[in-house]
């Protein structure tokens, strides 16, 4: 992999930016806020030998919130892909700053959604979001966004310089009863890795509240076929 100045439109910079994006979504995503990568402006890479050994990318990029506002944010990040002696995968480390990213109290939409679905007898379940034709109802979109945010925890953890993850589809979701003041959801999601072109199935249990944000409680990788040996990064 190259070091020094990188071509911002080429894959090494792009993959690193996608990792920063996943990090951003885990921290700031909600049913009404999900970011997508818009453009990488500049990128450099260097080998880091002091501290955690690995390759460190420095990025300047823009993201779009397609959860509701459509607003564009400018961000900068350092993404370190650790180099390990063993064959086990170590997740990347990300430091990220975005302008205008506010930790404001939740939007009215979020509060209304939260109240509606944590009311007694709320028992949402759905499958195939979006469906084969790309359709998804207005009502289901926040659940789709939440899935993307929760999936970002997994995508971030599983990322390396040789992966580039997106969430391809939500296979199903079921609301879970809970005594906590959280919206608790079980998801089966399909992730797509552009590099290997594989579709990887994960089950996850996540919670969300307007004040607390998204937190992922459990994750479980589902093998594609019986002799599947692991998600792409495990190879």
């Amino acid at each position: 992999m190259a070091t020094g100045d990188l071509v911002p439109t080429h894959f090494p910079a792009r993959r690193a930016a996608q990792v920063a994006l996943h990090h951003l979504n885990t921290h700031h995503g909600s049913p009404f806020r999900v970011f997508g990568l818009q453009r990488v402006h500049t990128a450099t890479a260097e080998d880091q030998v002091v501290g955690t050994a690995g390759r460190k990318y420095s990025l300047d990029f823009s993201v779009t919130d397609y959860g509701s506002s459509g607003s564009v944010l400018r961000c900068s990040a350092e993404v370190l892909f650790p180099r390990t002696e063993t064959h086990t995968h170590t997740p990347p480390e990300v430091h990220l700053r975005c302008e205008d990213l506010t930790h404001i109290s939740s939007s009215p939409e979020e509060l209304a959604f939260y109240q509606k679905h944590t009311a007694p007898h709320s028992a949402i379940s759905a499958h195939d979001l979006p469906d084969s034709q790309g359709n998804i109802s207005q009502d289901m979109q926040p659940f789709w966004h939440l899935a993307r945010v929760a999936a970002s925890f997994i995508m971030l953890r599983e990322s390396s310089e040789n992966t580039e993850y997106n969430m391809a589809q939500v296979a199903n979701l079921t609301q879970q009863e809970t005594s906590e003041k959280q919206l608790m959801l079980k998801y089966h999601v399909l992730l797509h890795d552009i590099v290997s072109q594989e579709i990887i199935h994960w089950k996850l249990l996540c919670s969300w509240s307007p004040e607390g944000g998204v937190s992922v409680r459990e994750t479980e990788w589902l093998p594609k076929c019986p002799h599947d040996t692991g998600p792409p990064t495990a190879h």
Partner: protein
Amino acid sequence: MKGLLVLTALFVAVFGKVTFEGDQVLRITAKDAEQISLLKELPEQTLGLDFWMEPVHESLPVDVHVPFHSLQAVRAFLAYNQIQYNIMIENVQDLLDDEEREMVKSRAFPRSTDDFVYTTYHDLNSIYSFIDMLVAENSMVSKIVIGQSYESRPLNVLKFSTGANRPGLWIDTGIHSREWVTQASGIWFAKKIVTDYGRDPVLTDILNKYDIFLEIVTNPDGYAYTHSRDRMWRKTRKPNPGSSCVGVDPNRNWDAGFGGGGSSSNPCTETYRGPSAHSEPEVKAIVDFVKSHGNLKAFVSIHSYSQMLLYPYGYKSTPAKDQAELHALASKAISELQSLYNTSYRYGSIITTIYQASGGTIDWTYDQGIKYSYTFELRDTGRYGFILPANQIIPTAEETWLALMAIMEHTKNNPY
């Protein structure tokens, strides 16, 4: 009685409405006769309730369509009286919209390509019908069957021609079956060509000098499988001896750096290259066609997603001989594309821009001497990915067409 008073206090008048937006259908489970009585006492008319299953007995569910304006009141009533329920239909309007969509699709089969619905995804039979209709309607269009898929489906290529012995321009879509916006765009391109011939001077000039070949469903077995079993299927459907895993990646099966890095030897992977170059009938058919035609001057293979325009090589980092020209033309094509809806694309050689990939289509066609060999990755950049909403088919096809026209026009203006 108190419940009813609470209810009335919360009641909001229902005005005449045109949609069912926000209406819900609740399934209520009464636990005893008393709860059934309470339900029977609900002022149906004033609330605008429509019982799909009337309250009869506590052993039977009560299904009721509640208009949006009455929802809060009804749910408060149920909560107050501790009557259990769950939401059967979150939003009635959504269900109606879905049904409307289905009805549009299953309306009497289109009788002509003017009747055909371009704003939805179609199954294989519908696409084959479209192809036959287009040929029947236009003397400049003919269908060539270049071979058969593994499961014996015809590999249909549309030929657009206004005269004999012309050099050719090739476009294929759907080589990876899950990339549905590509086959859908291919259909739109076919119609666009016949519509614009004789109207658009640039296209007319191109077709007066070149034939256009368009293979809309390059991997029909895979496409059928995405409809019947697995929306995310990419490869062909040929079984692999000694493995329970099916299929070969048709874009790693070409004889260009075959077997190198950027393709897999494992049949269970999405980039499995196959047992040998051109082992897949879907690939071999195109190889045979290209060789026997002998005079193709441009070759464009269309994929999704990522929004990229790519040129050779994928299998090696040595720049293509014509790199400078290919790069400049890609830049022009991309700015044409962007001019329509401001969709931004990245461009460059395959190996520098997206990843190393060996055994790819356009590496082979380029090394056969077809200079203007390009691959597109259409919309989007990962938000919807392979399942791009149908309402983006036409905008995607329209903007991509501008890029294709730039490539075809340049080919025409720079004969070699």
